[in-house]
């Protein structure tokens, strides 16, 4: 069964009597353990798609099934729980809480967890060690470099053992060296079985993924997976 199943998703934004159709009939299936990148020029609807995928907003119409659960019509409470338990976010601008230590930033999702598991600190420490940040546990966001901040963000996205990691331009604010390291981390996570959806407009970043989906003007214009299948059928 697919982890993500989107059928004819539409998203419109209303502006004083003016309706913009940002996503038009998007149909998308992503299997568990998949490594997908979504590409497209700015304004194509990448971020909107990611917001819907991450349960940050809801589609105007269409069906979105995440991990077997129809999430398109959930209320705020349930949607928050889905975000909390199933999704980890990595942002271009890192989005760490200012003035708070790396360790505490990593444990943030657990504040809102239904049950806070024992040994939070140890788990956070282990994750920070995994991303090579064991020497910066008690530094606040402002005291860390961009690359370091992004590694903390990745650790934070993993703390709840989510089914899906959504990364929005994760290398956008990083130099090439840190960018490579971040992508390396993602590659390793995929090997461990995590599903990752990457949103980017840089081809070399997108090429890390096994499957590249291009989106333009609110519609999927190409999908390497589908093309392979078509090719296979043609052959």
């Amino acid at each position, binding site marked *: 069964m697919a982890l993500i199943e989107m059928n004819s998703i539409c998203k419109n934004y209303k502006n004083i009597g003016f309706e913009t159709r940002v996503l038009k009939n998007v149909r998308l299936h992503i299997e568990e353990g998949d490594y997908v990148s979504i590409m497209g020029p700015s304004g194509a609807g990448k971020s909107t798609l990611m917001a819907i995928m*991450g349960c940050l907003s809801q589609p105007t119409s269409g069906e979105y099934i995440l991990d077997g659960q129809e999430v398109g019509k959930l209320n*705020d409470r349930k949607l*928050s*729980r889905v975000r909390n338990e199933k999704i980890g976010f990595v*942002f271009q601008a890192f*989005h*760490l809480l200012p003035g708070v230590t790396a360790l505490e930033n990593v444990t943030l*999702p657990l*504040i809102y967890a239904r049950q806070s598991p024992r040994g939070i600190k140890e788990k956070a420490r282990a994750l920070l060690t995994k991303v090579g940040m064991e020497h910066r546990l008690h530094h606040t966001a402002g005291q860390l470099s961009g690359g370091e901040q992004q590694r903390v963000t990745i650790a934070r996205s993993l703390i709840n053992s989510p089914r899906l990691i959504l990364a929005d331009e994760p290398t956008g604010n990083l130099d090439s060296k840190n960018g490579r390291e971040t992508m390396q981390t993602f590659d390793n996570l995929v090997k461990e079985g995590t599903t990752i959806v990457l949103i980017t407009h840089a081809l070399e970043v997108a090429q890390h993924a096994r499957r590249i989906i291009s989106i333009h003007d609110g519609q999927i214009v190409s999908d390497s997976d589908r093309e392979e299948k078509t090719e296979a059928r043609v052959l």
Partner: protein
Amino acid sequence: MRIFKNFGQALRGLRLNRASTFLMTLGVMIGITSLTVIVAIGHGVKTEVLDRITNMGFGPESFSIIAGEGRMFFTRSKNTTSMTLEDAENLLALPTVQLVVPRQRKRLRIINKKEFTNTRVYGVTPDWQLARNWKMKDGDFLSDSDMNQKRRAVVLGATPTRKLFKDADPIGKMVRLQNNFYEVIGLLEEKGLTESGYDPDDRALIPLTTSMSRLTHATHLHSIKVVTFYPSQVPATMENVRQILRRNHSLSVLAADDFRFITPESIMQWVTESEQALNRMLILISTVSLLVGGIVIMNILLVSIRERVREIGIRRCFGARRSDITLQFLFESVMVSLLGGIMGIGLGLAISFGLQRFDIFPTHITAEPFILSFLFCTLVGLVFGIHPARKAAFLSPEESIRAQ
């Protein structure tokens, strides 16, 4: 527990935004300061008045009549010269009256050689001592013959004695009041300062007749104290007294009394009335300042939410529900308000102590302002926090995460 975690996040938020936290507390702080001070003054005044009543030597079977129209202690009243010694004699004729003490009073400088002090000088009759039940420390009290001879004799309270004579024995010495010398014939036993700082020992007593001819140069009395046999006789006696005085003063039916009664009950009533007036003022001032404080909190929180949109977005992304954000911001506003309250109480107590210390106002600290402040602050925090908190909670997570 989720609620405690939100509380923790709120604390962290306040710590990180110290400047705005401080600004937010100011309004509430001022409100609670004024509340604390006014409550302290209210209690202080009440304690002092009660103190004075006790020290007027009122038993339940006595009351005072003060010359002049009006109410209670407000001395600048009309027709203050109509009460005479004859009135007092007529009152003594009433069957229910045990003692009558007519009195004149004047605040004067009393001088012994180079030492001098200002004190309250009373012209009284020998019955004063019986009515007040005040023992002598040394010497004798004024006698009937002192009265008849208009003798220049004085009985001193402990305070002027100490100031004028230090360690010397004052009995038989002469002190000067205006242009006359008086012989010190007796010393009153010391009572000591009352709780509110009133000094009952600050007085000097001379024969009423001497006072009339040498101090006030007038025959009218300032007050008459009436002692009945039993407390139950007081109301009826007061009515009889009223009729006698009205007749003696030839007041027409329409004219108001040109004298006032003072009883422990009437003083209590007056205190209660003034306390109520004070309380009304208190409620008004506190309401206005807490309202202002609340609005300040609301505005600063609204501004700070605009600054913290991103933080809210991040929290929402990682699973914070609307209720979590609402709670966090509500906790922030309630805590800010309580913090302002605590600071206000501190400042209020300091001011209250200062007022008492420097004799500006009598104050008395009670638990009341603490409880009131706690309640008011929580209320202000909740009422004025709810709007910003809801506003924060209903930001779209998608948009707030993208806000720059």
